[in-house]
């Protein structure tokens, strides 16, 4: 993950909900603009039984959710979800507490989710005409875009399944205390995460749990995930105390697998996710700060590019119809980046230690990524 994670997650979440303007990141402070209809008030009383919204249907526009908890010790949060992602939530509402959050909502069916309750998922509906064409669900009737979003769903599901297997190889070695085996399994596991990272980032706390770097956490004693174990392997030289971290990593990846199984995507989300992946490359991979102990940055670099390329390839038929020049330019620049990376491949299919790459060569890689990122940023506008 990178410090830009929150922003990236916001963008994805907002787009995923097909025009819902607020997202988890701004939900609590979302303000209605002048001219908006008055906010609808919805009460969510969380209890051991569930979290039914009242009313369960509201008109399009701003909605203020008031979350109350009279007596439940088991259920302490409520989330509004759309497109499989958290759009707004209130956490840590223990018995006797309450809280509010607001969203500006477009028509559609959402769910209210309260983990731990007997019935943890409740339907919530927003009626009425969409506020603007841009917020209409994209790609209706456009078969190539429908195929793209379905294809991306399948790709993410496949990648996460591979992530789970490869992570297990890694965590088994960690639990066995086998430093060499764990080192060898580290980068091959991560690539399946890095290829779909913007999707993972849209699931709230999951990305920090899996992929936080030490500078992303406020309390280093609660630091979990790949990079915690990376430090143990390469910097500390001991796996003492890492078994619980390995267990938690497996559990978090399993959660990710569950979430992506039902997740759906908008075409613009593919394009923006691809741009986010290039941002990952240019801000944290090129600098070598992502894998600062293992210097396996080039593996992540390549995986980010692979994930972006996959999204682009899925969108390419639609893009070629609306802007063939852009499609062609992107194809060429993806090839440039791939050729640049290929120079660092090793015989066993991996990548060279990033610490051995010269500054000049890093610059050359960065230039090719930046050359790709600029036209890629134009794609989202062409496929909605």
């Amino acid at each position, binding site marked *: 993950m990178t410090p830009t994670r929150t922003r990236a997650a916001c963008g994805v979440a907002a787009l995923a909900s097909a025009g819902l303007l607020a997202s988890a990141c701004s939900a609590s402070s979302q303000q209605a603009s002048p001219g908006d209809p008055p906010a609808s008030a919805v009460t969510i009383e969380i209890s051991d039984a569930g979290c039914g919204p009242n009313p369960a249907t509201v008109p399009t526009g701003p909605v203020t959710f008031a979350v109350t908890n009279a007596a439940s010790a088991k259920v302490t949060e409520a989330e509004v979800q759309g497109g499989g992602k958290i759009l707004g939530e209130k956490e840590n509402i223990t018995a006797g507490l309450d809280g509010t959050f607001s969203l500006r909502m477009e028509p559609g069916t959402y769910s209210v989710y309260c983990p731990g309750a007997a019935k943890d998922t409740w339907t919530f509906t927003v009626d009425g005409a969409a506020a603007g064409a*841009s917020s209409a669900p994209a790609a209706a009737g456009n078969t190539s875009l429908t195929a793209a979003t379905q294809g991306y769903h399948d790709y993410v599901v496949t990648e996460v399944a591979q992530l789970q297997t490869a992570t297990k190889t890694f965590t088994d070695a960690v639990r066995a205390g086998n430093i060499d085996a764990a080192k060898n399994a580290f980068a091959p596991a991560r690539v399946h995460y890095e290829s779909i990272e913007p999707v993972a980032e849209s699931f709230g706390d999951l990305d920090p749990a899996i992929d936080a770097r030490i500078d992303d956490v406020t309390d280093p004693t609660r630091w979990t995930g790949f990079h915690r174990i990376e430090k143990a392997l390469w910097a500390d030289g001991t796996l003492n105390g890492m078994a619980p971290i390995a267990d938690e990593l497996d559990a978090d990846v399993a959660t990710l697998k569950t979430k992506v199984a039902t997740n759906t995507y908008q075409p*613009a989300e593919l394009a923006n996710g691809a741009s986010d992946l290039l941002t990952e490359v240019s801000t944290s991979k090129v600098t070598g700060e992502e894998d600062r102990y293992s210097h396996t940055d080039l593996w992540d670099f390549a995986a980010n590019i692979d994930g972006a390329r996959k999204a682009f390839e899925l969108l390419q038929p639609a893009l070629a119809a609306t802007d063939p020049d852009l499609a062609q*330019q992107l194809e060429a*620049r993806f090839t440039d980046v791939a050729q640049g990376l290929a120079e660092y491949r090793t015989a066993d299919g991996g990548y060279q230690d990033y610490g051995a790459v010269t500054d000049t060569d890093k610059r050359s890689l960065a*230039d090719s990524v*930046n*050359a*790709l*990122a*600029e*036209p890629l*940023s*134009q794609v*989202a*506008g062409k496929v*909605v």
Partner: protein
Amino acid sequence: MELSRRRLLQGIAGAGAVGALAGCAPSAAAAADVVEFHGPHQAGIATPVQDRLAFTAFDVTTTRREDLVALLKTWTAAAEAMTRGVPVPGPAPSDALPPADTGEADGLAPGRLTITIGFGPGLFTAADGTDRFGLAARRPAAFAPLPALPGELLDPARSGGDVAVQACSDDPTVAFHAVRNLTRLGRGTVVARWAELGFGKTSSTGNSGGTPRNLLGFKDGTRNIEGADDAALGQHVWVADGDGAGWLGGGSYLVARRIRMFVEPWDRDRLSDQQAVFGRFKTSGAPLTGTDEFDTPDFGAVGPDGPVIAEDAHVRLAAPENNGGLRILRRGYSYTDGIDARTGTLDAGLFFLAYVRDPDQFVTLQRKLGSSDALNEYIRHVGSGLYACPPGTTGPDDWWGRALFT
């Protein structure tokens, strides 16, 4: 290195006109906030010097001539728009797209923004002799990389470049915005190689306010070529059609030199020595043989200790009358890039920009200054670039370098 006291140049500077400022009334363009983009010569050369500079040199990364041509067309349109104070052209604004213009100059007056382009020798012929874009035959005979010159210790990371852009404005954000947006538009075709921001002008080409001071506290180059002095421009600055450069007729050569000034030792030097180094009075800017900034130096004047203006004084070595009438148009700016981490001293100096009809004008002056100038104890040339700046564009259908590429 041991700098034998007195070598090098700093202001090829002093190469000013023989006469004092002639016809120094501000031109119409200077009074307005918008400088006309199109014209026989590129704006930003004879244009009265603006307060701020943003300079960027680029390496061309594409191998395709058509990519380069497409970029030059895009750049020309963007530059023309920014000069007028309107945003970079692009797709209609959309929530789904990044804005075409980066936006930091929205709402700012253009501040007489000019954007001037030049082509480096490497665009014509690569260092290994490759004719990169089929331009080798069009490279003017006078246009070769600058030779090694005395007084320089060049950093390759701050030198050269296939293309250079000089953006000048009275507003620093406007100048920065111009090169930033051109850099963005160029991604995939060019990459920025090095850049410099100039925070204060050190030259005048036609303002009546006198010569601005450099970071050593002196007025240098007081006899600069006037932007309205067509005769001097034609003789010393504009490449003539008959110069054998073909496409470059009406253009000019830009010499850029990043001249580091060692300001800490300078500030410890006694006033009389500072004045002897320049050959000028610090306060008035007048030559040591005069009383006014624009007085003509009297190089023959002697006192009890020898020449009043010392043999190695900067103004003597740079003066046109001591260089066969050689003159250059200076457009330099003071720069700083913070603190030199190795020494804890200010990384600051003069970002020297000069426009000449033939690069040899600069080479001749710098050979002399670099080997004998008293100022060399306090300065060093650490970055360098030479660029051929095509003539101006004739109108909306024209583009930078059209005559070179077609």
